[in-house]
């Protein structure tokens, strides 16, 4: 005689086959979130605080070994290759931690495409290269506005699984900002892509942004950014999946800005663990 009690017992018996190590491994996987370390903002003027910012996941997936991971990168944007933007957009939309955001700009440097998706309260970034794709996002409880001629800069560095570190700076650009050139701590310069009220630039290694030259209809201004109070990854490249963040706003207090981080490795699809 089999009844529902027996069915329940069979299911419990089968469920008991799951080893404790399986549970333990999943519980201790680092999903989320790590708080961004804030670079002290250059506080002049006033900006409505962004309020409590939501945390989102950063997912990095690698599809191949990453030696020479950034071959083809250039300090100035390059024209996209055939279907490069479409391929990046398709991949990024699939993996984006915040769905439904419109594309604001795409920065292409050789085979790499850095895309920004955003609305008034949220943004997601995605960098797609030949060997990896990384996505991240931020949400704030109030719309973020940036005064004309200014930028709200958020800069981070991270590394892929092979330990190749790279940094990026992105953010909202106020009205009239037509070009942004970043000067890094080592004196090198990286020209950002600017469009639709956003700018973005990225570069191999962990150099921080020292200043930004901002072009507006009235001329060029330079914003400086103080060094971060802490170097999260030290002088060496971040460990695989490491993540640090600094941000600053030239014309205001700088909103609280956090980001979560989690990593999926191995296979080409974020969220899948390699075995």
């Amino acid at each position, binding site marked *: 005689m089999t009844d529902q009690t027996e069915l329940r017992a069979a299911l419990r018996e089968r*469920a008991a086959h799951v080893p404790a190590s399986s549970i333990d*491994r999943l*519980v201790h996987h680092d999903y989320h979130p790590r708080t961004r370390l804030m670079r002290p903002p250059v506080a002049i003027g006033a900006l409505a605080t962004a309020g409590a910012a939501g945390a989102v996941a950063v997912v990095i997936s690698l599809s191949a070994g990453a030696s020479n991971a950034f071959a083809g990168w250039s300090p100035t944007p390059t024209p996209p290759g055939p279907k490069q933007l479409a391929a990046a957009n398709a991949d990024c939309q699939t993996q984006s931690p915040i769905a439904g955001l419109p594309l604001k700009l795409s920065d292409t440097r050789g085979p790499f495409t850095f895309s920004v998706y955003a609305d008034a309260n949220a943004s997601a970034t995605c960098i797609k290269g030949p060997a990896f794709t990384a996505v991240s996002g931020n949400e704030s409880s109030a719309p973020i506005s940036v005064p004309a001629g200014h930028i709200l800069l958020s800069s981070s560095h991270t590394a892929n699984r092979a330990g190749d570190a790279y940094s990026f700076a992105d953010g909202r650009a106020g009205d009239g900002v037509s070009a942004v050139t970043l000067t890094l701590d080592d004196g090198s310069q990286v020209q950002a892509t600017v469009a639709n009220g956003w700018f973005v630039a990225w570069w191999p290694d962990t150099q921080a942004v020292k200043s930004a030259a901002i072009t507006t209809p009235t001329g060029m201004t330079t914003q400086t950014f103080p060094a971060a109070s802490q170097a999260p990854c030290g002088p060496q490249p971040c460990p695989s999946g490491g993540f640090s963040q600094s941000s600053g706003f030239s014309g205001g207090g700088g909103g609280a800005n956090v980001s979560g981080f989690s990593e999926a490795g191995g296979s080409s699809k974020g969220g899948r663990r390699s075995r």
Partner: protein
Amino acid sequence: MDHRRADFENFVAHNTDALVRTAYLIVWDLPEAEDLVQETLLKVAGRWHRVRRMEHPVAYARRILVNLALSGADRRGRRRRELTGEPPPERGDDSPESGAIDTQDELMRALAALPPRQRTVLVLRYFLDLPEAEVAAAMKCSLGTVKSTASRGLARLEQTLRTTNDTRSIPT
């Protein structure tokens, strides 16, 4: 934001066990279950600022898990057919080699042979002991669909078991 991280870690610590065992019973495969739970938790993490304010965050996670499991079921079946050139096996991968008739073993084999949606309903209903309304919410279907799917699943179990032992029956 430390409290938010602590909230999420607490959520993971308290719910992963049940999520993995539920996933294991639905897909009948441990590595696949682990992948599904990891993907589920990543999705929950990405929306945690909203999920943590829900009355039952675990119900939301369960809905993601079930959706991922069922949306992948057809794909897994097709992949298996492509690899082997034959339909998926009718039995679970750990069917006993022994020829001895054991009620629980036969029941497990019958469960393994159920279509994914029928097995999912039975797992949610009889392993997690969820009310039918919560099963419907987890599977994003109507209450009537839950009842009919459970009824068909139980009937199919009974039919399978009858082929080996006519004395068994499963009341619905």
